[in-house]
């Protein structure tokens, strides 16, 4: 809990969020774009940042909450240092992606959308990364691991600890 608070103050305290909001001040239709940029900067949306967005863009907080929970790109909780995406697109699915996901879940003890207690890994599933030739695909921190088989998942994850 303490760690979470610390992350939150750091995030809201940094001038980056102000810079992002500054670009769109008063433009309510830019809400999604602002949230995307904050998400990219911090990997999640701290509550204090959302309050700032609400004040500066003139959008009620409940509407921001609606948007932030509707879209997949946003996270309202802190994320791990490493982001794992397992592609569950159709092509990856029929090439065995569910088996890859099973192994990742078993190894880390978390489900998609969750972060492990040590804030090391966050796990997500995505619906097609558009590199179906390499399926099944697992991406860790932007690096693509193509033609993944259950047996080498552990090795891949170990290299990020």
């Amino acid at each position, binding site marked *: 809990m303490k760690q979470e608070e610390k992350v939150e103050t750091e995030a809201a305290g940094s001038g980056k969020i102000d810079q992002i909001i500054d670009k769109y001040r008063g433009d309510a239709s830019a809400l*999604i*774009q602002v949230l995307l940029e904050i998400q990219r900067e911090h990997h999640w949306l701290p509550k204090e940042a959302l309050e700032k967005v609400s004040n500066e863009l003139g959008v009620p907080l409940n509407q921001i909450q609606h948007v932030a929970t509707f879209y997949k790109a946003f996270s309202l909780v802190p994320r791990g240092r490493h982001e794992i995406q397992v592609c569950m697109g159709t092509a990856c699915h029929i090439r065995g992606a569910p088996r890859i996901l099973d192994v990742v879940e*078993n190894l880390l003890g978390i489900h998609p959308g969750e972060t492990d207690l040590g804030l090391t890994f966050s796990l997500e599933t995505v619906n097609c990364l558009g590199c179906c*030739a390499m399926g099944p695909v697992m991406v860790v921190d932007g690096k693509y691991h193509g033609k993944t088989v259950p047996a080498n998942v552990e090795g891949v994850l170990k290299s990020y600890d």
Partner: protein
Amino acid sequence: MPRVSSAAELEGLRKDILSRREPDKPCITLCSGTACHASGSTEVAASIEEEIKKQGLSGKVDFRRTGCHGFCEKGPIIVVHPEKICYLQIEPKDVPEIVSQTIKEKKVVERLLYTDPATNEKIIHESEIPFYKNQERIVFGSNGEIDPTNIDDYLALGGYSGLAKALSQMTPEQVLEEIKKSNLRGRGGGGFPAGRKWEECRNAPGDIKYVIVNADEGDPGAYMDRSLLEGNPHSVLEGLTIGAYAIGAHEGYIYVRQEYPLAVENVGIAIEQAREYGFLGENILGSGFDFTIKVHRGAGAFVSGESSALMTAIEGRVGEPRPKYIHTAIKGVRDRPSCLNNVETWATVPLIISKGAEWFAGLGTEGSKGTKIFSLVGKVNNTGLVEVPMGITLRDIIYGLGGGIPGGKKFKAVQTGGPSGGCIPEEQLDMQVDFDQLAKAGSMMGSGGMIVMDEDTCMVDVARYFLDFLSDESCGKCVPCREGIRQMLKILTSITRGKGKEGDIERLEELSEVTRDASLCALGRTAANPVLSTIRYFRDEYEAHIKEKRCPAYVCKELISYYIDPEKCQGCMICFRQCPAEAIIGGKNQIHVIDQEKCTKCGTCFEVCPPRFGAVSKMSGEPVPPPIAEEARMITRKSEAK
């Protein structure tokens, strides 16, 4: 760069660009689309730049990073011009040889060429590779020639001449007539005639109108829109500007998913360059027509690709659909007339204007004109993007271009149209692919995803997969979609878990009907297609799951077991070591046994067991034989016994 202020000036500029290019100067082009990037094209690019310097060729060789060539299976792809020698699956270590042999010595590096699996022949040119040979790449073909961040490359190939023609020689009405005459149908899903949509928007009352590019390509397994936007963004901008002129819009939006960062970046660069050159902004090409484009990034919601939902998202609100008693062409973004088409549709427009509606209508079938880009993926040898004339048969695509099914497996079905589409069985492989034929077969064109499935694919699991996707993506605003999909998913899940009951199939059919008839938007209305088409063609698989608790394709985890045949096991320890669940009991020279309690059915043992032993088998619908007694597990080799 001076602004181009008339059609004549554009032609002058084009001549100037071409005159500065040396057609005989060697040029290395490297595919840098997302798929090639994932397979290492960035590293290859670095080593090409380094090697050109190292071998003293700076200034003597051009190097261009292009958009997607389509043959993703064999990426990263290099084409060396002017000979157009095509090298596949390039790694950084291959680059010194390409530079020293092909650029300096003009010799072909045989080992990097494509080998035809049928004849074992080496093929030098991209256009002769069977994957490309039977394609008709009118929209997608320039991708491999253009550096998407350099507008001059697009101009060199005749870019913006369609816009110049429209603005200088045609009235907006004539442009509209031309599109109507071409019978261009929307490439994003429903196949609605683009001309009719444009006309409705043009005739709608209101001074402010919008044109929109839908690049929220959400169908899993389809990525042609991304590849176009990444690889040839100016073609989309040009088409959109022509459309805006015909409709009378002065503002445009490109709605692109944030999951496509390279597309966002390249389209941003392209807009900037087009503005500098005067193809966007005020008084375009001296015609008095003004037009600007904004990019809006989508934040990841499948349903936001639906036109009315997308327009709500552009306003900064949650992208949920609304009833469309009044078309978005009349009341769209901010309740103003808005014309939305997808990326491929807009990219086709400049070609129709340049070459004429008759040329376009000469391609394709009676009801579906022109070409279509498909993403051919799944259990097929040549994964990639293919552009073919409408009316080609599925067999020609899958076997002719795709090279058939890998590993000598048997074809089972091809799924088209994404989560709204259906599965087409082998009996219909000779069907001509167009909007109407696909719909007749219980599927649809969609945005052009084509997922090939072989005998190892369970059709009930596929239906469950799509419903799972849709239940996750349904926005929940209307009950028939939200609840209908949820209930269908529940039934399908129980069937795949061996808990299916007599009457489930009929219940699925009934739910399908209600969801189809009563849902608000196309997501719900088409959600049943994956279920109905698999029931229609693969009812026996449903029945096997329900009645015999058997998964014929050995996919559904709860219905299968892995078993090591004690007669065949050689105690080699390979599966023992690789099992991620540590579910294999064994030791050196001991027959291995799977602990069925611990087994997670990941299939690793089945895959790693050496084929010469073939000791691991999959079982379904029958009990696993009891494990062999511990004292009988020692293997006595024949050689030792002697």
